[in-house]
């Protein structure tokens, strides 16, 4: 039982790491980035390309992953999403175009990674970090599990605090409510949008490297598999609320773990879809979402 809870928390922390950046960008600057999974994968993949040549430690790989993720995310923002927002005739059209653009862009890193790896999983066995497992009697926990848990919940707390207390965080929330008035308050929306995308990308990069450590290896297609799960977690918790994402990720992982433990698991894939659908019907703002969700 204790092990199941720990497992659910770990799975939840993986969803969280992935969903955090996505939720941040969506809830504030209104960008639902469908290339997020691809960015996560490609950051982890870049770290793999480096570690294949040089044996590096975990912190260095995490840095590489975060840097690659931030750069990719910025590129996507500057080359795709900014032009879309500049040209779109209204908000709804921009949303749709960003969605499709993200889907299209996501194919590009995927194609490159698939080509180099032939879709064979890659891992960091070339690095210096080794996985150890500790048996605490009532649960078994590995060092990478601890890192993942601490990183996910720690980063969520840090971002939550930043949004709440720091002035740029406040400005970002303002943009989430009313971008135009925010700029009337002197907020440079473009700069904050770039900052947000960079942070989201860096989070995706971190998540990718941690995920690869935690799972042992990931495949080029792994990023996409997390996309809809992360989306379910965001919807469950509520768009624009960091506490909501944390709650959503943990609850989703909890339900999935429960179903896996109590059934043969063939219905497990349906849970995320069920959660998305039911939440949107019953409470579109999510458990902790603000009342005024942008619903254009």
């Amino acid at each position: 039982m204790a092990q199941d809870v720990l497992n659910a928390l770990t799975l939840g922390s993986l969803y969280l790491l992935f969903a955090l950046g996505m939720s941040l960008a969506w809830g504030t600057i209104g960008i639902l980035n469908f290339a997020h999974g691809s960015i996560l994968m490609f950051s982890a993949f870049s770290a793999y390309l480096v570690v294949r040549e040089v044996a590096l430690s975990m912190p260095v790989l995490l840095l590489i992953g975060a840097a690659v993720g931030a750069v990719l995310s910025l590129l996507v923002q500057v080359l795709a999403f900014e032009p879309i927002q500049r040209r779109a005739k209204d908000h709804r059209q921009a949303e749709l175009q960003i969605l499709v653009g993200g889907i299209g862009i996501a194919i590009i890193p995927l194609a490159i990674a698939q080509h180099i790896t032939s879709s064979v999983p890659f891992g960091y066995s070339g690095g210096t970090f080794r996985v150890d497992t500790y048996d605490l009697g009532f649960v078994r926990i590995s060092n990478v599990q601890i890192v993942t848990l601490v990183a996910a919940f720690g980063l969520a707390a840090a971002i939550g605090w930043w949004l709440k207390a720091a002035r740029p965080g406040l400005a970002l929330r303002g943009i989430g409510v009313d971008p135009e008035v925010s700029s009337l308050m002197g907020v440079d929306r473009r700069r904050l949008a770039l900052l947000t995308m960079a942070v989201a990308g860096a989070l995706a990069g971190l998540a990718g490297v941690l995920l690869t450590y935690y799972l042992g290896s990931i495949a080029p297609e792994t990023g996409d598999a997390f996309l809809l799960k992360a989306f379910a977690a965001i919807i469950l918790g509520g768009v624009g609320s960091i506490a909501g994402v944390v709650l959503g990720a943990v609850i989703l992982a909890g339900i999935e773990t429960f179903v896996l433990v109590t059934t043969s698991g063939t219905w497990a894939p349906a849970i995320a879809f069920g959660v998305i659908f039911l939440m949107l019907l019953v409470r579109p703002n999510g458990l902790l979402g603000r009342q005024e969700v942008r619903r254009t």
Partner: protein
Amino acid sequence: MLQIDDLHVRYATAEAVRGVSASATPGRITLVLGANGAGKSSTLRAAAGLVTPHAGRVTLEGRDVTGLAPHKIVRHGMVLVPEGRRVFAPLSVEENLVLGGYTATREKSAEVLAQVYEMFPILGQRRAGAAGLLSGGEQQMLAFGRALMSSPRVIMLDEPSMGLAPTMVESVLGAVRGMADAGIAVLLVEQNAEMGLEIADEVVAMARGEVVFSGPAEQARSNASVLLAFLGEAALVE
């Protein structure tokens, strides 16, 4: 202080503002009158940088700010209080105000915040509550306070009395007068001409995107019926 010269604003199919000129000077209220669709809001939005003017000039204290991005114009000392108040509803009252002082330093912001609370005590009482829970009049006060947080030298108000109860309208316009008395240049767009004329120093009347009258408020007040008739006729044409 604020000088708008021969401004033209064009949208996809129509020219909303055609050669409008207006100005606002410290301590005085310039009232812009006009029917729906006369181009008042467009003039303000263009001056604030929300839309790019097609032609013309906007200068602030002699500096050309035409076509600058809105967040830059704020830094030049001019702020727009948009139509419909548009407070950040889910954010707390205080967060709204702090965001208003985004361009100021932390110390300056704290100082002005205290002044705003003094000016609008109700905001101080509700500082931790969500802005969306305030009444319409209170929200308008918050919008004023938020605009004042950047210590502007020019303030543009787009229909502050819209949708408010008559008693609220009076206190809102009182607050507008107060801002001008504090030495700020005020450009006020108001549909409620009679109330507006009571506090205005200068009047600009617009119809179909053009200025049809411009002059001191006394002159407008003395010819109020003529002016109103003209505006009414213009409104019919619209």
